[in-house]
């Protein structure tokens, strides 16, 4: 018994001595970030120097001007893709929803006076969009209960130069979108994330100021995102990249967080109970949780009391569910040079316990909790770091050859040939009322073929604006929502159809 205890003690002393020794005489590998290799992973794009998500219009549509007292929504409803809506300074109290493509909605700033969307604490969301190629800029948005600006599956979006104050759960929240730019926004007073990129791909978040919120900028269940040149201060947590388990998109991958100011994120957590961010310790600079291939580079991270950078797996988030399809670890975290000042000076028990296990005392700039594969860090001797014993030195020093992950030509629309278009529209729309053989709600296809033989244009015209022809049939509803190409394609398809 005594022997066994002595043995354990001896092993303990040996391990401590080994760690102390390695701490006392670290081999300092000093890597200059002024030169060296650039990151050669990440999303391959041909976007080049251009940081834009909405392709420049070749021709302009109508410019609608909205004055205070007018309804923005009523103009959105009568506008066509390609139009621009300019909103003059003044107060507008409404929810604007854009369920069409290619609308530019912009406030006009006149000597500092903005178009203000005011939810008066009773409206849900300020702006919702589901269309592609949407630009929203120059608004002042305040006092909504849900979101300031929310996108649902809109691709190619630009959200720019908005001042957003206390709009509920999120300030700016594009979700399920591909290819978007969020820049030059000032967002504060948000109960979850000021800027929340949720389940989206190819996103660029730059030059924003986010403060007095629970989370500053969140990249969640998203891929190919760059977060750069932002100022995230006085939040509970500054910049976050993580996976929320239980969502249909299962991973966060390929994120670059670079050249941001991340400071004083010591605001007490006021997130809603049960929300993912409610578990963020106050005083968190950058948080990586279950996200893979994240690069942290060139940030100035200062005065965050819990830690400058926290990297962890899901086991440290007690409030999340389990999801067998979500991999819980943060793998391939890559920490390049960052300026770290006065972080982790008043940290949480969990971090203290990890530090203690490594006999680390004093402040903590960086803490990694949980398993990780393939992670690396340059110039580790500069930081007060815990839990990075298995980090290699990175074999690159910068991400200079990656300008953005935006797509040069925007998210590709699905290319459907005219023939396929005709078939899809026939089976998806027409066949509900017309069949080849018998009477359904409308006349049978051969009857239509006889009337419009060799005249698909005539049939397309009728589809667009039908008139009642038969007393014993109900009137057909207009198919004007199908675009002209689809109308003609389906007319040709229907006329060529054989049993």
């Amino acid at each position: 018994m005594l022997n066994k205890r002595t043995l354990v003690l001896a092993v303990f002393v040996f391990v401590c001595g080994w760690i102390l020794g390695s701490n006392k005489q670290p081999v300092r590998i000093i890597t200059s970030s002024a030169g060296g290799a650039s990151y050669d992973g990440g999303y391959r794009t041909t976007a080049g120097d251009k940081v834009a998500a909405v392709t420049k219009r070749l021709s302009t549509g109508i410019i609608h001007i909205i004055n205070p007292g007018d309804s923005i929504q009523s103009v959105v409803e009568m506008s066509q893709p390609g139009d621009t809506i300019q909103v003059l300074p003044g107060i507008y109290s409404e929810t604007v929803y854009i369920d069409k493509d290619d609308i530019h909605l912009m406030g006009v700033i006149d000597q500092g006076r903005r178009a203000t969307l005011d939810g008066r604490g009773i409206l849900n969301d300020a702006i919702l969009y589901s269309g592609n190629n949407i630009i929203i800029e120059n608004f002042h948005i305040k006092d909504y209960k849900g979101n300031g600006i929310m996108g649902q599956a809109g691709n190619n979006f630009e959200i720019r130069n908005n001042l957003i104050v206390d709009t509920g759960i999120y300030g700016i929240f594009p979700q399920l979108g591909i290819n978007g730019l969020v820049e030059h926004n000032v967002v504060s007073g948000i109960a979850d994330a000021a800027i929340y990129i949720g389940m989206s791909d190819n996103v660029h978040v730059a030059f924003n100021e986010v403060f007095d919120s629970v989370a500053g900028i969140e990249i969640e269940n998203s891929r190919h995102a760059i977060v750069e040149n932002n100022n995230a201060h006085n939040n509970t947590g500054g910049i976050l990249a993580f996976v929320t388990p239980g969502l249909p998109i299962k991973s966060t991958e390929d994120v670059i967080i670079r050249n941001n100011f991340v400071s004083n994120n010591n605001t007490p957590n006021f997130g809603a109970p049960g929300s993912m961010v409610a578990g963020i310790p106050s005083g968190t600079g950058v948080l990586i949780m279950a996200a893979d291939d994240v690069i942290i580079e060139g940030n100035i991270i200062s005065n965050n009391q819990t830690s400058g950078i926290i990297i962890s797996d899901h086991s440290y988030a007690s409030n999340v569910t389990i999801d067998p399809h979500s991999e819980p670890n943060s793998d391939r975290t890559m920490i390049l040079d960052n300026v770290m000042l006065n972080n982790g000076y008043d940290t949480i028990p969990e971090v203290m316990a990890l530090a203690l296990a490594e006999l680390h005392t004093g402040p903590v700039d960086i803490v990694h909790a949980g398993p990780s594969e393939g992670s690396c860090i340059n110039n580790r001797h500069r930081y007060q770091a815990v839990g990075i014993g298995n980090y290699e030195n990175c074999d690159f020093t910068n991400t200079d050859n990656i300008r953005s992950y935006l797509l040069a030509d925007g998210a590709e629309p699905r290319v459907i040939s005219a023939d396929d278009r005709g078939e899809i529209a026939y089976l998806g729309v027409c066949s509900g009322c017309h069949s080849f053989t018998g009477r359904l709600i409308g006349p049978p296809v051969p009857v239509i073929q006889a009337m419009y033989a060799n005249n698909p244009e005539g049939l397309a015209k009728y589809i667009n604006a039908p008139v009642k022809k038969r007393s014993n049939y109900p009137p057909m509803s207009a198919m004007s929502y199908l675009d002209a190409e689809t109308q003609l394609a389906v007319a040709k398809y229907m006329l060529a159809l054989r049993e």
Partner: protein
Amino acid sequence: MKSLYHFYGSLQGKGLGGMKAGLPPHRDGFSPEQIDLGRLLFFDPVLSGDNNLSCANCHNPSLGFSDGMGRSVGSGGRINKRSAPTLWNTAFLDTFFWDSRSPSLEDQALESLFAGDEMASTPVKLIDDLAGVDNYKALFKEAFPDHVRSESSAITVANVVSALAAFQTSLISLNSAYDRYALGDPSALTKNQVIGLNVFRSFVARCSQCHTPPLFTNQQLAVIGTPEPEGLPRDVGAAKTFSSNKLRGAFKIPTLRNIANTSPYMHSGRFSSLREAAEFYTKGRGHAVPENEKLNLHWHISEPNLSHDELDRLVDFMEALNDEAFMPVIPERVPSGLLTGLQPDILATSSGD
């Protein structure tokens, strides 16, 4: 299966989105003969142990392929734990049963055919009963022509569940008023339905975060903490499937398509109307969870404080998700000659002339 949603893609091909987002992958490629055989089997009580129950007893087409009951009644009057889910758009689903325990339509059918509290047959009895019906010999041979050695050899358990799966993949509902709005026709929804849509997708109510279009489910699990029917113990749900207490009370998020037809609502039918079901979400996070019960409630269960008007508008919107254009024809007679107990659909049977 074709729909205008095929004009669009979606993030990572997952079939989730706002308006113009594509559909997720779906089961397809069954022959018309397989689908039609599946239809006849679906309505035929010969599939059950006592030849009294057909699939359609609990998945009744005129009740949204559900049964109007909180908890379904199986063989011998045995009351099930949970309600019968709708079969519309099951072609798109990855998992089956409320607790996600089954990975395919076929696997689901195997369980329901042979479970004592569902149809209570056995593989041997099922094949014997079917092989005793002359019509089925021919129908199985036509549907599964690879089995050429003898007429009866095509009648296998695998082919039975395959035909049932084939039939279910034909139950597509993607042409509701909502779909016409989403695909470009702004007049397809009433003013009140549009208001309801905006409540539905707002981040106050957050409905669309889980009931995500175009299917109106994101196919994930959620613990929402609805009360069980009076006197019944807590249903642990997916905690059993995944052996994790974090999923205690978790259920698969159901589609809302044709939801107006499938009252009562929730896994054991605690709420009798859509209005009540919607109201549950605004009564406060965990308001119906007993004090001694520990549930890891979903993060979207919050305190939205919806007004009475907003709840009414949500119901208006959910009613815009109805589309039963592909309602199958209920056979007047099934091959076994047994009575289906269901009224043949008069409209549907007259359309072929």
